[in-house]
């Protein structure tokens, strides 16, 4: 971390802006504005990670925290503004996209409740800050330990080595959590909430043109991030985030998105990351005697193979989360296409 005067000034401004922005997000009453501020907040946090010399996390934060989560939130706010009919049975006559004045779009009042929550939250924040400053030097220097064992890991980038080799158990569980998340969202089947069609009504062709331009670019970018993850910041999660965003763009632009419409390939794609990871982990048990301990000769190839399937799964999971409903089974009645979709643009 640089310690130049400019660096310090930048860091101080950044550190002061974050809590102020967080406060604004929590207190603004218009949900739409809160989501936009949240996206900006995610970008600032990504900047903070860069200042802390953690480019891998910065990449993931910018793509997932600011980008994809922002898109999911906007989707939700839009559905709320349109008056999500269906399960709640509350039907609103066609609203325009503007959420002004809709009670469902505002955070309920409650100044005292907010203050009551603010006190313990600030106390916790202050306690954490004090703890970090007072923290004694750790007895084990993890960074040095990782560096010493890096040649045995099979990849040159320490973050990838930690994620995919030294602590691959954690990553396995994280991927399992992602799978659980999509299962949970699917079980809710929110298709009614947005009227059966997510694509923006085909107005001008500008979005189509951009998506057609971006699709090969993003595929190459995702592949590069995956490949470069062994030597530079990158890896499965970042590549998966880029490809997931591509999936979201394809769905939004109404261009054909067959992987998200066909039942079996989608399910296989979602499960293959976790499945292969688990299988590899158990298979090496037979060779080296410990789950998830890769034999040294096959290190690099196993890591790359696992990262490849992880990327596919993560990308499909993120795009499927955006669509929020499982693809229609062939034996079901045709989906709610009869209802006039209240154009989202």
């Amino acid at each position, binding site marked *: 971390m640089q310690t130049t005067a400019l660096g310090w000034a930048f860091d101080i401004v950044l550190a002061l802006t974050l809590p102020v922005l967080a406060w604004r997000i929590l207190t603004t009453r218009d949900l739409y504005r809160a989501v936009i501020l949240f996206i900006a907040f995610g970008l600032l946090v990504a900047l903070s990670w860069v200042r802390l010399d953690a480019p891998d996390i910065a990449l993931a934060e910018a793509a997932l925290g600011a980008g994809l989560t922002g898109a999911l939130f906007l989707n939700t706010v839009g559905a709320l503004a349109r008056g999500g009919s269906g399960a709640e049975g509350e039907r609103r006559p066609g609203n*325009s*996209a*503007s959420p002004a004045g809709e009670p469902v779009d505002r955070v309920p009042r409650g100044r005292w409740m907010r203050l009551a929550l603010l006190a313990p939250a600030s106390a916790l924040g202050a306690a954490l800050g004090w703890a970090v400053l007072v923290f004694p030097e750790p007895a084990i220097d993890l960074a040095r330990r990782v560096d010493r064992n890096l040649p045995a890991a099979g990849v040159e980038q320490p973050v990838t080595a930690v994620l995919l080799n030294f602590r691959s158990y954690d990553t396995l569980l994280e991927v399992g959590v992602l799978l659980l998340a999509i299962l949970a969202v699917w079980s809710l089947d929110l298709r009614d909430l947005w009227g059966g069609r997510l694509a*923006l009504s085909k*107005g*001008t062709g*500008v*979005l189509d*043109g*951009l998506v057609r*331009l*971006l699709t090969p*670019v993003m595929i190459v970018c995702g592949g590069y991030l995956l490949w470069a993850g062994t030597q530079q910041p990158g890896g499965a999660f970042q590549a998966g985030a880029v490809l997931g965003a591509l999936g979201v763009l394809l769905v939004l632009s109404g261009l054909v998105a067959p992987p998200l419409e066909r039942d079996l390939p989608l399910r296989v794609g979602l499960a293959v990351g976790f499945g292969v990871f688990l299988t590899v982990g158990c298979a090496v048990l037979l060779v080296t005697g410990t789950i998830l301990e890769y034999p040294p000769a096959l290190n690099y190839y196993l890591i790359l193979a696992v990262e490849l399937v992880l990327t596919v799964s993560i990308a499909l999971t993120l795009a499927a989360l955006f669509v929020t409903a499982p693809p229609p089974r062939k034996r079901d009645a045709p989906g709610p296409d009869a209802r006039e979709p209240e*154009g989202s*643009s």
Partner: protein
Amino acid sequence: MALILAGALFFLAGTLGLLRFPDVYTRLHSLTKADNVGLGLVVLGLALQAGSATAVLKMVLVWLLVLASGATAAHLIATAALRGGIRVWRRR
């Protein structure tokens, strides 16, 4: 260095426009134009400091992508606003 500062100035001007202009369309205009030029200047300034031609190419690619996506996003917002019924501001 001077180029980067000039680029930052453009960003500032664009944000000022965002805050001060009267309606969606003029705000979009100030944002996209000023930010694109600002980013271009920043990229130019960084390119002079960069180590290799690959890095410069990557930065130029990023700039081009921002141009394309910024223009599309502005267009989408504008058409959405038009459809939502927001009227263009006219000087009284």
